[in-house]
């Protein structure tokens, strides 16, 4: 038996507005010190899973109706977001969500909200070491940073909580390929410093290229999981979640077969 996983989700069910069932018995583990990729189409429940872990479901009228979430062996099912952060789980939300009106430094201060005052210096130095650019712009207003810089700030802000586990929600979304690569390198670097990472991505190539293990989600359930390399090679996965690779000879979208309906369109 290996060490306790840093995050373990068991048979989780989540319901929004008391009606919409979004996760239906989802289980996954993030082993300590690893990068785990979570793939799936829009609406598969990836973001919901992250919310269920961090307690942010409350902000969306969602509720865990079944299952457990444990962090380092402690049960945190349905815990208050502040507690979750204090237990060492930090999240970089989709769309970055930096505090655009505040300065870069104030963003980082907010990120360190759960930490003791005395530790702030040390934490912020660590982040500035990782992102020297943020140190240059520390007094600048965060909203004026470029898209890539904002993503760095969002990650830096999450690191201010000194997390054991970092949850990254679509960090490559809306970034040019060059920036995606930068983000990928940063994630590897962070992981190298001992932080486990759960990486939610649409960009499956990017995610699987750095992850050790991957899960594929479809309508709230894990439909496939395995070592990242194995998933990268799997034909079905390639077809449905990666699209084509240069040599797979996919058919053109212009030629997708269209069956006729009973009635003709008439303008």
């Amino acid at each position: 038996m290996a060490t306790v996983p840093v995050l373990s989700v068991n048979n989780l069910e989540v319901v929004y507005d008391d009606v919409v069932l979004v996760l239906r018995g989802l289980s996954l583990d993030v082993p300590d010190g690893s990068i785990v990729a979570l793939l799936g189409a829009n609406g598969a429940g990836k973001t919901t899973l992250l919310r269920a872990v961090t307690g942010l479901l409350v902000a969306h009228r969602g509720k865990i109706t079944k299952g457990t979430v444990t962090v380092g062996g402690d049960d945190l099912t349905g815990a208050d977001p502040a507690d979750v952060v204090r237990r060492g789980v930090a999240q970089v939300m989709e769309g970055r969500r930096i505090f655009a009106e505040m300065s870069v430094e104030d963003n980082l201060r907010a990120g360190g909200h759960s930490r003791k005052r005395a530790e702030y210096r040390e934490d912020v130095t660590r982040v500035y070491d990782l992102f020297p650019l943020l140190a240059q712009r520390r007094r600048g207003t965060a909203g004026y940073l470029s898209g890539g810089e904002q993503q760095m700030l969002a990650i830096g802000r999450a690191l201010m909580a000194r997390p054991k586990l970092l949850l990254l929600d679509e960090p490559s979304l809306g970034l040019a390929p060059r920036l995606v690569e930068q983000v990928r390198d940063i994630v590897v670097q962070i992981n190298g410093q001992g932080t486990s990472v759960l990486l939610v991505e649409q960009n499956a190539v990017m995610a699987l290229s750095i992850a050790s293990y991957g899960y594929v989600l479809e309508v709230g359930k894990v439909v496939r999981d395995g070592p990242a390399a194995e998933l990268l090679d799997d034909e079905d996965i390639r077809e449905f979640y990666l699209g084509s690779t240069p040599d797979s000879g996919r058919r053109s979208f212009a030629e997708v077969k269209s069956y006729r309906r009973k009635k003709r369109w008439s303008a």
Partner: protein
Amino acid sequence: MTEPLLDVWDLTLRFGGVTALNGVSFTVGRGELFAVIGPNGAGKTSIFNCLNGVYRPQRGTITLAGQRVNGRSPATIAGMGVARTFQNLGLFEQLTLIENLMLGRHHLMRTGMLAGMAWWGRAKREEVDHRAACEEIVELLELEPYRRIPAGLLPYGVAKRAELGRALAMSPTLLLLDEPVAGMNVEETEDMARYLVEVRRELDLAMILVEHDTRLVMDLADRVLALDFGTPIAMGTPEEVQHDPKVVEAYLGGAA
């Protein structure tokens, strides 16, 4: 190509110090599917916002079928036959799908407040007639099971389709599609591609497609315009643009 449907000349748009569009010119022929690509922040959506009057460009002209477009209000431009879908879903969430489609026909209807109150004569006739027109779109896009569901509760893929439906309900001559397959998996993308192909085949309609999914663009578009930071860097057939070194450099970066 004879006289183009849409003629965009030297479009320049600035916000404060930032230049969102810089001397963008292109034409779109009748029935043509024209695509705009470029990395994030390249100004793709800004073109749309200029085309339908949400933004006022500082310089340049936009002409649709010989009529000047820029300087007019969005509602007027909609009446001229420009329809649009939105990147982040512009459906009216609390209205049902069929009501959203009927709103697409708003500019084709005449019932005013008093006539609507009375539910009499033309008001009633109009509702019935235009409802029939909407039903055809429901059928074309296979939206039958969702008629009475508030748009906010529609699954993502269906909502994207519904938005296309609303744009079609406007009986447009020019259809602007803002990332119609963003966030979709391959299967859903194929579905959407099929609808687009079919709409194109059935209706003599020009389309401008802004899309991140380059494969879809390359497969469907007649011509492609590539932008980088608001400046046009290449225009031509998909193949030409795809192999343009400037495009490879700017858009695909070292990763290509």
